[in-house]
């Protein structure tokens, strides 16, 4: 019982980390870094609730995806065409999200800070031997497979990698660097949008002012852990997700919280993230031109 709930918990906690990380992997391979994933998660989680309440869970997922894609597009235009600072633009998204969603919740439902999503508007779970499981777990694996295939087995993948390593070489080979990079930014935004929708209309069944609670940043850690390989992002998502769900389970166990204050248990996923990333970093070589705008001459 405990084992199966831990496994399901880990799988469910993996979904937002892995989907978000997978999108960001493709974007960073193309040369655009987005640290505004946390903000995109939050805004698209909010938009997905609005969409689901208007047209059902599938509509909610679509609205989440499109919202994320739009935010990714904005970040991409700033980074690629205006050659803006990608860190500043990403931080901007995070701050924007906090304001927009706080006001949005009040405006939409009248209550400040919190809105519960009714079962009818949630993504219906699949029944499995372990218990009810979200179909988004399977979608996550499919998205990782798709991203891996795009990167490793298509001409587009070659172009994406070239734009991240040496955009001048890609340009000389006739690759339209700006378009490829913009595609990367939109792809990352769209996948993050799906992950945001999953948070609100599936896993957590609620929308709050700070729903992702740092998962956008843990997804960035997952990207580092993965060394930009989508399959390793699945593994990383599982590891971080396991500690996330372990924290959730442990902090509700009275036997344990009597010994360790639950605040310390809830810190676990973040501490593990730090430790794992500190171990991986330094051995990882990012694409040479990632995060840098491309300018001819």
């Amino acid at each position, binding site marked *: 019982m405990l084992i199966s709930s831990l496994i399901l918990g880990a799988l469910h906690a993996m979904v937002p980390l892995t989907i978000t990380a997978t999108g960001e992997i493709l974007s960073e391979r193309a040369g655009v870094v987005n640290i505004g994933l946390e903000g995109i998660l939050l805004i698209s989680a909010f938009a997905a609730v609005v969409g689901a309440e208007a047209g059902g869970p599938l509509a909610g997922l679509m609205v989440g995806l499109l919202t994320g894609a739009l935010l990714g597009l904005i970040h991409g235009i700033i980074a690629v065409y205006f050659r803006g600072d990608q860190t500043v633009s990403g931080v901007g998204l995070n701050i924007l999200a906090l304001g927009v969603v706080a006001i949005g919740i009040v405006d939409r439902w009248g209550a400040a800070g919190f809105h519960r999503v009714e079962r009818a508007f949630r993504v219906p779970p699949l029944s499995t031997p372990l218990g009810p499981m979200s179909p988004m777990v399977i979608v996550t694996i499919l998205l990782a497979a798709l991203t891996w295939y795009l990167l490793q087995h*298509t*001409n*587009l993948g070659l172009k994406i990698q070239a734009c991240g390593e040496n955009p001048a*070489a890609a*340009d000389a080979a006739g690759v*339209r660097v700006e378009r490829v990079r913009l595609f990367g930014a939109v792809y990352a935004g769209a996948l993050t949008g799906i992950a945001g929708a999953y948070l609100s209309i599936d896993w957590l069944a609620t929308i709050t002012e700070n729903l992702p609670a740092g998962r956008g940043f843990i997804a960035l850690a997952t990207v580092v852990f993965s060394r930009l390989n989508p399959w390793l992002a699945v593994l990383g998502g599982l590891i971080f997700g396991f500690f996330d769900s372990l924290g959730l389970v442990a902090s509700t166990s009275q036997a344990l919280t009597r010994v360790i204050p639950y605040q310390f248990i809830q810190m676990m996923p973040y501490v593990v993230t730090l430790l794992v990333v500190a171990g991986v970093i330094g051995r990882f070589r990012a694409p040479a031109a990632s995060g840098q705008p491309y300018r001819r001459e």
Partner: protein
Amino acid sequence: MPDRSAPPAGAADQYKPVSVLAGAPPWLEMRGITKVYPDGTRALENVDLVVAKGEIHGLLGENGAGKSTLMKILSGILPLTSGRILLGGREVSLRSTHDALAHGIGMVHQHFSLVPTFNALDNIILGRGALLASPARAAARARIRRLMEETGLHVPLDIPVEQLPVGTQQRIEILKTLDRNVDLLILDEPTAALTPQETDQLFTVLRGLAARGTTIILITHKLREVLALTSAVTVLRHGRVVGSRLTEGATAQDLARMMVGTERMPDVKARREHQKSEPVLRVAGLTVKGDGGQDVVKNVSFEINAGEIFAIAGVTGNGQSELIEALAGLRPIARGRVYLLGQPINGKSPRELYRMGIAHVPEDRHRLGMVAQFSVLENSILGVHHEPRFRRGVPGTIHWGKVRRYARDIVRRFQVVTPSLSTPMRSLSGGNQQKLVVGRELSKSPSLVIAGQPTRGLDVAATAAIRDLLVDIRNEGKAVLLVSADLDEVLALADRIAVMYEGEIMAILQKDQFDRERIGLLMGGVRDGSAAG
């Protein structure tokens, strides 16, 4: 489109020179091309270039003459400011390399445009095929194998190119462009990293391509290559066309004269004559390796005397940069001995060399000469900041009052125009930045000043000021090593000139032997009428 399935044998023999100048109809026309960079530099001024189908056309000129800029416009990398480009009589718009390739225009770049983490195969197929299709590696591999057989340019296809030597990367670059089956092939100094045998083989391939209808434009400063390969040649100088002529009947002398011009030497400050004294710098059999590990300075020997400006002329990239880096302690000496005032300097650090009396005005002043974010004050003591005279008692501290007096003195003596000492260096004009760098180096009271391209990118007034300073140093009895790609500057300042070509000193000329044409020939690798390299 050239038909590569035809047997290549004998194709090269069938190549007959074609040229618009010999009556062939124009195919590529670049009309009135002007290029002004965003910073106001006028790189090209009303340039015309007309080439026939199947012609091999040479584009000749000194550094900064605008050759590469003109060809980057043609290959879609740079936008033009004004002018028109016509292909087969129809005006074309080339706003990206994608456009240019769609019109059958491909360029082999001088600075390799390869993705370092990709192998040769992936570099060659990059950017082609349907987006979501699998890269056609097997077909490409077979095609490139054939191409390698045909051209004699062999490269390993499966090793990341960053692990391959420069010469191999150059071959990949050429194969990549040939594999595109372009109608117009532009090559920017393609032989810079090739052996003589590979160069000959490449030329045979190019003749074969031209015989089958490919038009070729060859950018070079090597006169021998122009004479050996082209039908006609256009010479650029300071962004303008000096002239176009048929290669047939031209001599290396004719081309050298067109390339370097016949202007009168500009006046500089009067130089004081003095006695020859003992050599300040003695370089014996110096060999230095480049970034790729190959010898780029080859067994070079010379001496510089006190009270003399010794200039090294040559087209950039012939080993001058590596030579001065080695003398300034920034690059290891592979073989040979270097003595400053009789003391060996092999293996010394830049700080030790400075103590021994070498001041260095680096070629790349933005990267090596200053810290752009630092203030004028801070930049004025870079390299001497640790000295006791700037300390507040204990080592590791800085007495800013003393630094201020020192910096104010440099600014006054070298006429650096700056709003204040605390102004960031990047806010100064290029000329004032350079005056501060030169001033700082001269304030170290050196016995040898190494100046790399000291006036590059500066305006007329700043150029004159820097040149006068160099003559002043000479007149004070110091030795100056001047490296410059600007022949006018070398001729105006030098007491003796060494011409470097492919890492070797072609000749050292005394003042009474200075002759533009002869230096132009030497810069192009021609020694006493016979070609080298």
